[in-house]
């Protein structure tokens, strides 16, 4: 065997950057089932049968589809470390990811997957109110199973366009009266006034579904103790103001590495850090996945993500450096 060795002991400085990535794997589609009108579930497993990394209810994975990345909640059993399940709603008006899943992916195909990660974790409390709209049932499904195992008291309110469009009703049936199925065509919108009308200090509310449902839940929970409502959004929160302040430059001080970086207008903190050799783990770069969350030590961030709650924004403790900017001239970050 002949091989060359580097004659110089010095590595190029560019190679000294730490490259963070999420676990990426090619998984085999082992089952594909229609679960409701327009909803297909895929079961994924390691092609060699190896154990998959663990996850907890509320976790999601990225499905890497040629030129697009789509995020899907894991809706199988967290304890099952040999297969994962996702469910995908066909969105004819969407960006094409769901159509690709529905039309091209078949049993025996391999798909590239990244993750899992969890920004919608289930906390241990004695009582839960779960609210799901449409395909938003997917993260809730393992949550109700976990709540049941933990002996917690819970109710699920599950709305959808019509009964036929609502996936996993068969798997929810054994829970009996804990589950309220609420098809819009026969019963109208979910009765949130009834469900969330009276704050319950010992309960947490977990809600996943389309933006109007999330907004309605946020509004109804305003009178609840801070931190009671947990939401998951898969699309960016509509931005009320058009990137105000995006024209200002500001300074970011990386406390741990001792580096100070100027973030010019039009460049994100993430990009400015990256150019200066500070690599922050990031994924979606649109403020929805939470991968780049960074601790704020000083200064006032201009939060533009879709993840942090109002309370968390005010706490000024963490920020998503991919989209958020600064209201103060200087931000000190735990980097």
């Amino acid at each position, binding site marked *: *065997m002949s*091989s*060359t*060795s*580097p004659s110089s*002991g010095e*590595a190029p400085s560019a*190679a*000294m*950057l*730490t*490259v*963070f*990535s*999420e*676990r*990426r794997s090619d998984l085999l589609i082992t089952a594909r089932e229609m679960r409701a009108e327009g909803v297909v579930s895929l079961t994924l497993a390691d092609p060699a049968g*190896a*154990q998959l*990394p*663990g*996850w*907890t209810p509320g*976790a999601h994975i990225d499905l890497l589809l040629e030129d697009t990345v789509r995020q899907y909640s894991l809706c199988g*059993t*967290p*304890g*099952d*470390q040999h297969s994962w399940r996702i469910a995908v709603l066909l969105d004819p008006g969407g960006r094409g990811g769901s159509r690709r899943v529905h039309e091209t992916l078949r049993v025996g195909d391999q798909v590239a997957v990244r*993750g*899992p*990660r*969890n*920004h*919608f*974790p*289930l*906390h*241990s*409390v004695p009582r839960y109110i779960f609210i799901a709209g449409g395909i938003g049932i997917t993260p809730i499904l393992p949550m109700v199973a*976990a709540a049941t*195992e*933990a*002996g917690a008291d819970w109710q699920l309110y599950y709305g959808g366009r019509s009964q036929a469009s609502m996936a996993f009703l068969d798997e929810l049936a054994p829970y009996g009266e804990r589950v309220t199925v609420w098809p819009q065509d026969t019963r109208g919108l979910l009765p949130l006034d009834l469900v969330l009308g009276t704050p319950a200090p010992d309960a*947490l509310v977990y809600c996943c579904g389309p933006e109007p449902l999330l907004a309605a839940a946020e509004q109804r929970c305003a009178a609840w103790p*801070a*931190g*009671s409502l*947990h939401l998951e959004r898969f699309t960016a929160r509509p931005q009320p103001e058009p990137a105000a302040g995006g024209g200002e430059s500001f300074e970011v001080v990386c406390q*741990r590495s001792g580096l100070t970086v100027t973030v010019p207008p039009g460049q994100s903190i993430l990009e400015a850090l990256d150019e200066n050799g500070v690599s922050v*783990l990031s994924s979606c770069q649109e403020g929805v996945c939470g991968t780049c969350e960074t601790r704020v030590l000083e200064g006032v961030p201009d939060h533009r993500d879709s*993840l942090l*709650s109002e*309370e*968390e924004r005010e*706490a000024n*403790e*963490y920020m998503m450096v991919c989209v958020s900017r600064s209201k103060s001239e200087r931000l000190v970050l735990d980097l």
Partner: protein
Amino acid sequence: MTDTADPAGSRNYPLNCWYVIAASDEVGRSLLARHALGQHLLLFRTADGQAVVLDDRCPHRAAPLSMGTLDGDRVVCAYHGFSYAPDGQCVGVPSQRNVPYGAQVRSYPVLDRPPFVWVWPGNPARSRGTEPPDLPPLREPGWAVLGGSLEMAVNYLLLHDNALDRTHFPYVHPHRIHRGYVQDPPPLQIEVTETTVSYRRTFTPAPLTGWQHEATGLDADREYTQRETGTFVSPALHVDEMDIIGPDQVYRGVFIRAYTPVDAARTLIIWRAARNYARDDQSVAGRLREVYEGTMTEDQPLLEAIQATTGGAPDYRVSAAADAAAIRAYQIVEAMLAEEGGRAFNRWHGPRRD
């Protein structure tokens, strides 16, 4: 739950997790006492071979049950003869006819996956349907395995930090490493999931170091490509894989370290090292044992001194780029602790512990 050994607040390991409590061959038909996971535990096997873990404390007058005897599948307390079934239920009190209501020893979910016995110290309901990490080299044919155990006066997170860090090797283990550890950049490819962190790197070709040459029989004068991966699998487990790309095969060594916190300042390390080469060669086994044990005992004085300086939980002023994997592991542990405590009402981060 109450922690007998950890003062409130000092526990920094999650309870809802499988930990290796013993090697499978340590647990048999006699009563074994083990202080771990903040508890005094009792381990034994029933007549049909089921591993059992109970609290090592009679509910009556707190005598360690491990001082008693095993009568069939019943544990009989040495002090007053109270007897307990394998599920912890009191089944007999010699001095009275009634079995006291509620006289029960806590039992723990156990999974015996040789060579390890795993225990779940947290909420038993949360263990249902879960499995400890799968370790194929310890159960598949084609591997030779050696191992042992030791205890260090070190918090378990410091051991994870040490295992995820390769930049201390030229300083602490200079005679055990090949040139790549000095010349090549530290591991920069870090891969994360919700529950795991791993690093990987491929070294530029380099000559083997002495023990590698002796163990593999590969040519001492040639250069070989090597790669390594290290994974924080769970708070209970770190796995390293080290490959030498030989002309005929990949010489793989898998170093598995189970970290089981004894209390906030001590950790039980139960380790196994699997290799896919020289499987029947006892001199190779002996040489590798010296390497693995030697590496750990070289770390020990430094780690114990750090423990004495910081007093337990990570308390660092500065991190380097090469610490990225360890920092990520801390974040995973922090999220698990926050979730268990029901404290993190604000999504996934726990209260600041600094």
